[in-house]
């Protein structure tokens, strides 16, 4: 408990240092459009909360991330399992994915606009692309690392191919799948902002870009800060969920 308190104090210290350095730098620069003081962000936050625009933008971004993330996960996990349990598929799928993977999500934005126009749909596409690869690669690694002895034990109890997938490959892979989901959600969240900078008329990315054009720099920082806080919350929440989902990994409780 003391140790935890210690960590919190040190962590807050780090944030305080950042704010102090920022304040000094803002004074030095002397141009609130280039670098507003941290106190100016407070006003920006109150205004955007008051006119409810911040809430609308957050909701728009979250919706796009969740949609794209769910789309990506629900294809990446089954595909990874199928690839591991059915060898020929592996040789068809893996080269294609190896080729597509180096393309950063942002490079998909122009083609997404071309295909889907402006609004939610190009963002769904880009967030899905961003989440797909980390989820797929972790799931593949997890399912490939299945213990041969677990497969044998299941087979000599009468498990067929589908039962092996459901009762052996999937649970073996789940911890890795979950790691992939955590990374994928983070990537997706970063990608949605990128997509919204150009391909949407709402959302946090759009808000940042709009306020930059209008020289409302404090609001740009508010947008960035909200992105940071929500991203951190997502990671934290999934980390907590992990312990609940995998009771068999929770060593040392009897």
């Amino acid at each position: 408990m003391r140790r935890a308190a210690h960590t919190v104090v040190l962590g807050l210290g780090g944030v305080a240092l950042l704010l102090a350095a920022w304040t000094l730098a803002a004074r030095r620069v002397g141009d609130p459009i280039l670098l507003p003081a941290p106190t100016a962000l407070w006003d920006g936050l109150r205004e955007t909360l008051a006119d409810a625009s911040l809430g609308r933008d957050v909701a728009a971004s979250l919706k796009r991330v969740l949609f794209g993330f769910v789309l990506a996960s629900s294809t990446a996990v089954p595909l990874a399992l199928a690839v591991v349990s059915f060898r020929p598929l592996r040789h068809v799928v893996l080269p294609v994915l190896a080729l597509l993977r180096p393309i950063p999500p942002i490079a998909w934005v122009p083609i997404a606009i071309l295909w889907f126009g402006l609004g939610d749909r190009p963002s769904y596409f880009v967030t899905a692309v961003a989440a797909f690869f980390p989820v797929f690669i972790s799931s593949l690694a997890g399912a490939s690392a299945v213990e041969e002895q677990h497969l044998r034990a299941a087979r000599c109890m009468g498990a067929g191919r589908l039962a092996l997938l459901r009762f052996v490959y999937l649970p073996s892979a789940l911890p890795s799948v979950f790691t992939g989901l955590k990374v994928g959600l983070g990537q997706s969240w970063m990608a949605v902002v990128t997509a919204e900078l150009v391909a949407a008329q709402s959302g946090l990315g759009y808000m940042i870009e709009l306020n930059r054009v209008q020289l409302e720099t404090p609001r740009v920082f508010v947008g960035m800060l909200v992105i940071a806080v929500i991203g951190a919350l997502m990671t934290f929440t999934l980390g907590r969920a992990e312990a609940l989902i995998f009771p068999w990994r929770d060593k040392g409780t009897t």
Partner: protein
Amino acid sequence: METMSVARERVAVVREPDAERASASPHSGRGHVELRSVSARFGRAGREVIALGDVSLDVAAGEFVAVLGPSGCGKSTLLNVIAGFEPPGEGSVFVDGTAVTRPGPDRPVVFQQHSLFPWMTALDNVAFGLRMTGHPAPRQRAGEYLGMVGLADVVDRYPHQLSGGMQQRVGLARALAVEPSVLLMDEPFGALDAQTRVLMQEQLLRLWERWRHTVVFVTHDIDEAIFLADRVVVLGQKPNRLRGVVPVDLPRPRRRDQRITSAYQQLYDQLFEQIREESLRTFGPGGEP
């Protein structure tokens, strides 16, 4: 951390199964295993290693056979071929007249260790085979079998919360629950400490004497082979052939104090000499005796 001491590791007395099940044993007459000129090889052509060379063996229904041999003699390969995990290179395996082509719940395997599904509780591990074979009440039946191996108290624990001996008992219950005709055991007590191993052997015998499944039990421990088996099959090395089959004419139920009888000693010496000769062959050149 679960640090279960040997003393606390109590193997409970086998519960009396209900009279109905005992009388209507489903295993009587099933479980005849035949190996006909079975060979198995590993590796690429030209640099093949013979894992098993031309082994023929007949195991009667209800018989307890131990397969004994030095490491590398192909004991586990023999078991894997019967289990259907590895196809024999030549020859074939029949169980009750049907050729073995794949693993199946009539021939489950109890492995040496770490074969329980870590993501399932003890109960779900045992229920797994029952679900696969379409049993109407898998959890209830699984609970009964866990009770028979003395683990009624830990049904909801995950494998990592159980000691090594308890894990092996869950593994045994899992294999027994599907009511197999043949039970295949691959050094199932090999990773346990000596005390737990002895208790496990006694428990296994009590269960077997009630059900009389056919058992093929792989071990490198001569005492274990004699204590458990009706016949001991000795596998030799280079080539990995059947070295000999030694019947164990000790009365059942087996007891530890049979070890001091001269019959036991003769058996032990006979097996010891065979194993020693086989082990010596991999020592240095000029192996042919």
